[in-house]
């Protein structure tokens, strides 16, 4: 009887078999890598804002303290955004008619708030509390990165659950004396390891309790 398939069929078959295996492998790799990549987490991607506010200028160059604008950070769950008035305390004197600041003046005049775009946000079912992190010596820059180098603010870390857990399981590497939490580019002293160990007991930090679900989900 005649051949159903030509000689090449075997080669094709072998190729198809191996190609399928390779494709599966690739799919797995992508599946693991993609959710952690900047495309998904938005790390390092500056967000367009109604006013191109520059932390680089205000913090890096003028040296404003974080708390000048984010005044809730030590006492409240949310760090808080500056009210238009706060901007105007200076900008009623400086750059009083810079076009860049028109929206701010408009806001004050009309009473309609400025609508900033979120840069660092977690889902609604995640309850992050700034005050406790500040109190326990987790610095601003630990999560928000070196904002004083950011002309336009961008997310510094993925802020996904895995990333949070890393620190909640072993906070020590991210601790510093609470009085230093607002410093940028903080240079750890040489005996930092000992300091951190003492901080754990001093600040009464219990990592074993910090991975309970309700710590973040309520």
């Amino acid at each position: 009887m005649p051949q159903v398939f030509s000689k090449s069929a075997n080669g094709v078959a072998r190729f198809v078999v191996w190609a399928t295996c390779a494709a599966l492998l690739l799919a797995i790799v992508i599946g693991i890598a993609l959710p952690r990549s900047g495309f998904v987490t938005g790390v390092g991607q500056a967000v367009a804002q109604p006013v191109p506010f520059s932390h680089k200028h205000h913090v890096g160059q003028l040296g404003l303290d974080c708390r000048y604008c984010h005044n809730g950070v030590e006492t409240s769950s949310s760090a808080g955004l500056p009210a238009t008035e706060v901007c105007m305390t200076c900008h009623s004197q400086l750059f009083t008619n810079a076009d860049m600041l028109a929206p701010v003046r408009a806001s004050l005049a009309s009473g309609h708030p400025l609508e900033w775009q979120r840069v660092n946000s977690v889902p609604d079912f995640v309850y992050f509390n700034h005050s406790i992190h500040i109190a326990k010596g987790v610095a601003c820059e630990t999560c928000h990165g070196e904002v004083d180098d950011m002309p336009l603010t961008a997310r510094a870390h993925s802020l996904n659950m895995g990333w949070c857990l890393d620190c909640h399981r072993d906070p020590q590497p991210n601790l510093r004396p609470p009085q230093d939490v607002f410093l940028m580019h903080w240079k750890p002293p040489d005996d930092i390891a000992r300091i951190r160990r003492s901080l754990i007991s001093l600040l009464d930090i219990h990592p074993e309790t910090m991975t309970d679900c309700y710590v973040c989900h309520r």
Partner: protein
Amino acid sequence: MSAIADIRPIPTAGIAALREQLSSGHDMWRSLDEIARTAEFLRFVEAEFPALADRLPSRLDRRTMLKVMGASLSLAGLTACSKARSIVPYVRQPENVVPGKPRYYATTLSSDGFGIGAVVESHEGRPTKVEGNPDHPASRGATDAIMQAAVLTLFDPDRSRTPLKDGEPAAYGDFLGDMAALASRLAGSGGLGAAVLMEATTSPTAKVQVEALRAQYPRLKIFRHDPLATTAGAQASMALFGKALMPVYRFDRAETIFSLDADFLGEGPGRLAYARDFAARRRVRAPNDSMNRLYAVESTPTITGAAADHRLAMRPSEIEAVAAALDAVLGDQANSTPSIVDPAWMAALTQDLRAAGAKALVVPGSHQSAFVHACALAANAKLGSVGSTVEFIESPDEVRSDGDLAALCSAIADHSVDTVVVLGANPLHTAPSDLDVHNLFSELKLLLHFGLYRDETALHAHWHAPAAHELESWSDSRAYDGTASIVQPLIEPLFGGKTIHEILAALSGRFDADALALVRQTWKALDDTAWRKALRDGVVPDSASKPVPITMAPDLGGLQHHPVTANGFDIRFVADPWLRDGRYANASWLQELPRPLTKLVWGNAALMSPASAERLKLENGGIINIAQGTSNIDAPIWITPGHPDDTVTLSLGFGRKIGSVATLAHGYDAFRLRTSGANWVAAGATIVAREGKAEVITTQHHQAMEGRAIIRHTSLDGFRENPGFVREGVPRMPTESLYPDWNYDEEAWAMAIDLSACIGCMACVSACQSENNIATVGPDECARGHEMHWLRIDRYYSGPIDTPDLFFQPVPCMHCEKAPCEVVCPVNATVHTHDGLNAQVYNRCIGTRYCSQNCPYKVRRFNFLDHQSFDKDEAGPEQAVHNPNVTVRSRGVMEKCTYCVQRISARRIQAQIENRDIVDGEVVTACQQACPTRAITFGDQNKRAAKVVQEKSAPHNYALLEELNTRPRTTYLGKIRNSNPKLAQLGEKTDG
């Protein structure tokens, strides 16, 4: 939670968006609200409501409707959260508002005109939760269901949003214009032909203003319409003391209490304080502790009767006979009247009363006849308890009125009144059926209505003006004992509503009057510091009325016992415990909160005894026709063990025709059967069974404990003989376990619930709903067993069906240490925490519902449908009332009691910041905080001194279904009744 609200009028952007909406929009608005005509709708939505309008789903089935109504409209702040990715700061940050930190303000909520102090939690200016004010005598830190719902009614989008002229929206300016005209006319005529119809109020400011009005317009008439008014007490007091005095009971001093059809735990402005005092005398922890004893004679089952040690069910018309008998016996003119009560019972009662002497207390039912009140007063006097367990005060700030609605109607009928200003009341719905208010009001030249809702009266009136919600108002009021407190606003009026003070001022021709100024004026005695203190504490210091000495007229001041000879059924009218006269009918929380005894939701039924139902050959839901005088209504029956025979209990408040939520409910309108004469009790009604059945929705279908040791109870003597009675004849708790124990070396949260203290008032359930963003699901879903309450109060009957014992058992999550639910969850969505909480992680849950299947207590609730949206954009309106610290659960997710984990976390974070341990009593769960009787204790059972540890160490502490070895953290203290040994011993055995 994330975005920051700015309390400010709706941005103009909304209106443009609205225009697109309207094409599809107005249809659903019509369905949502029958009376809206498109033109009108156009105007008022445009004027008031862009935010809600563009959030309404395109088709409103009942459930989506509830989602919109369940808690209502969005403030400007919510348009801010509506874009999930954007975040909006203040323009001018209000002083001492820290975004993310709740603030608490003391204010006063009104209950039948009296004040009950409250502390309201506010998030960035949104009132989200009502707590009791510990410093206020009428609250003592406790709340009830209605107070909890205040925040919900505040955000109710059905509330009146604009003035209406002949039912058409009009500008407030025009309204003021006509008011000016009216005022000048009144000035001219000295108020001739004009009348003001007021609700019950104890506001000193209102009183001052009304008196001023009288002075200004001498011929102005003031009438009072209060459908739930009970006047008999005042009559009796007039007859006996010559002046209308108000009794204040001191249950903390009472040893033996006899309730003559009085529901002092569930009704009246003092109920929370009374419940606290009453239960405080029933905390038995050791054999030598003592306990008060409550005898109750009731014409309808109430929670007071359920709490009684000895209870008799009597026809309402027979209560007078009982009172007479009591009077006779105490007057030593033994059986002058043939007693209808079992002599042994009466003997035991009188013996106990006499023994208690000054510590005895006889309480008359406020709705009962003046004669019953007189007998009770006399009895107290004879027992020497006046001044000890009962004191009398001048009724606080009663606004002097020229009569009730009936009087007004006759005045209109004889044309002596042609202008009526209705302040708050809704006579067209709540008038007795023998008054033809509708026609009479039609004859008026001018009918002004002022109220929260566009209700029947509002739509009939020439002018309607929206009232401000009590959480939006400046006012003041007095508590049951006369203590004055200030009502301060939590939020600017959402719909530009006005307070009653502003309207009264307008009547007197002052249109610029500001409520705060008026109230401050009334309290000018207080200097600014005192005023601020009064605001902060929520009470005006030592403003309580002083008891007045009384001299009692002999032989009951001439009041006679009129034996009722009418045959046929007695009708006993009661106000629905939550909806009252129907004013709260649009609050879905209240509609869906099971009634304490019947566990009915979303509708009322005609309650009758098993015997009567048997005679009529009816079962639950069977329809009867009740004819009384000229009118008659159809109603489904609900068989209620312990209900007196030949009596039917009808509850007011249902059958509303207006209000998007109110109209979802089933049920009849009992006002149509009520006549001026017989406000609360009517004799000689004829009842005939009809064909067919109606759906009566209940959340508990089985009433008996089936011989299981669920509620373990005994008598006081039983307890003294055997303090460990809860362990008698019940399966032992296994001591061995296959698994090694986990040790909880930090906190170990636990709860103890004292069944002897629980009166089943449902305050805890309502508080839980408010605190934890629990969805309402509507009548249809409730009927399918989809209701969502995390905490339920089980009600069981035991003993003979005609005179059963009643038991209540609050059932939250038990937080089992060996939780069956956790092991079966395939995705780790419910796991244990280091402090022993049985945590439920909504965002991890995929809804296999295995945990619920495996929960022996069935305390888990499942979002079967999309009851409240997870997505901020559509959810908008609901968020206004939501607790920002609790996740809103999406469809397909299991949820349950978390021991208010958000509160635990908040306290822990605070403690951690301050580098200290959480102290005992710092964490208070919502249910515990609301409980009037302090039946619930919560704390860390690793702390030796903790209150919860003391409670759990009581000899009668037991865990529910402990034989399953689930090791619950929630345990119960067995129920102890102080039954009189001379009377039949009830409930000696530990099972139902």
